[in-house]
């Protein structure tokens, strides 16, 4: 049988204690153990970006991390983006209003990636957005409306500077 470890992880502001096999990826832990199935798995080898989560505020592929590595750390998944159970985050509203998704499979990874991008660069150019989401593959939209939605979101977030989730304000470049 596979070796196990007991870990403590804060996911979307909520503390979880769990005993996990050491070989389980963070993505599988989030989906199967915590039932947070918003994190999608496309390629499972770090190419598609669908499983992107924020690890201590920094975007990371959840398929390229082990659950044991999250012990003592903070994770934000797509479920942690809305400020509460009823309201959408301005980024999500912008995606809805601009048809920034079709099938929606890549959307969780794109939203988490953009949360980090817009936090560091609140007034991005179209090129900044295109480079920023270059690690996220979308097979439906051709990216055009994703870029439009992201630029719209930047405007909305500048106007309403509230509604940010708790893990949104971490600065992390001082390590």
């Amino acid at each position, binding site marked *: 049988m596979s070796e196990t470890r007991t870990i403590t992880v804060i996911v979307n502001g909520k503390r979880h204690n769990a005993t996990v096999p050491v070989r389980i990826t963070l993505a599988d832990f989030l989906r199967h153990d915590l039932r947070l199935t918003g994190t999608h798995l496309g390629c499972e080898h770090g190419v598609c970006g669908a499983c992107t989560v924020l690890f201590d505020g920094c975007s990371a*592929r959840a398929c*390229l991390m082990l659950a044991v*590595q999250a012990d003592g750390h903070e994770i934000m998944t797509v479920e942690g983006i809305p400020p509460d159970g009823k309201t959408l985050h301005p980024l999500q509203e912008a995606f809805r209003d601009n048809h920034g998704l079709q099938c929606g499979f890549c959307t969780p990874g794109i939203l988490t*990636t953009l949360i980090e991008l817009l936090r560091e660069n609140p007034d991005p150019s179209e090129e900044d957005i295109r480079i920023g989401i*270059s690690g996220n593959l979308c097979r439906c939209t051709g990216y055009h409306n994703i870029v439009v939605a992201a630029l719209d979101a930047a405007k909305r977030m500048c106007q309403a500077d509230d509604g940010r989730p708790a893990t949104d304000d971490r600065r992390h470049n001082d390590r």
Partner: protein
Amino acid sequence: MKPPVFSYHDPRTPAEVVDLLATLDNVKLLAGGQSLMPMLNMRFVLPDHLIDLNCVEGLSYIREIDGALEIGAMTRQRDIEFSDLVRRRCPLMREAITQVGHRQIRNRGTLGGSLCHLDPAAELVAVAAALDAKVTVLGKSGMREIDFAAFPVAYMTSALQPDELLTSVTFPCWAAGHGYAFIEFSRRHGDFAIVSAAALLEEDKSGEVTRASLTLGGMGPAPIRAHDVERALLGRAMTEKSVREICESLRKIDAIDDIHAPANYRQQLAAVLSRRALLKAHERIAAGAQK
């Protein structure tokens, strides 16, 4: 697509890592995991033991010592990308690192992981060759330094002994105002380069080249320093014509032939990218002098 069964170790000090390396068999070291985790998921590697370096203290730093940058092996590529010290003292590395994967990859990926993985087309591997870096490794018998030129011993295989851990890398800095450029060609943004060219130049007041470094990545199992081109540039003034002529010889370098590109295509890229990188480095010297 799940990692195989392994024993997991998360030591806290480099000495503990070396002890584990010396006592365990069939071990893999896990740094940023951006190459090893896909290899585990796809079962390309089947280690009995995985030693996670992410809890090891004292391996993540960037500092300047005696005209060189010393960077800890577990320093994230993101921290190098955003380091003012790197931007000022080693702009080639900054230019190269923005071409490493995507933001999500650089947030986790490390300097040491990239160098030990030794992908022939990896940007940081080419930068280490271009700057004549030295790698510091810790083993059972103590510390030793390896010139980066002697670090790759075969395709994706380093000179590290089984009980050795890469702890830091020293990159000698070039004079203030030097020229630099890192140019790569890849099919998609963020992919490994098919071929990359890293150029460094110093010129005297009359515009003659006094020091040159040209490195090609993606051509063979390890980056190639184009020493003939470097020598040919010395004492010459950089013109489009002279650089074009000198770079023509790069079409004769042996190149690998694979699914991504045939050898002659790589040779063509070697000549073209080298010319562009050298001319860009030269333009940057001129632009810096005007300030």
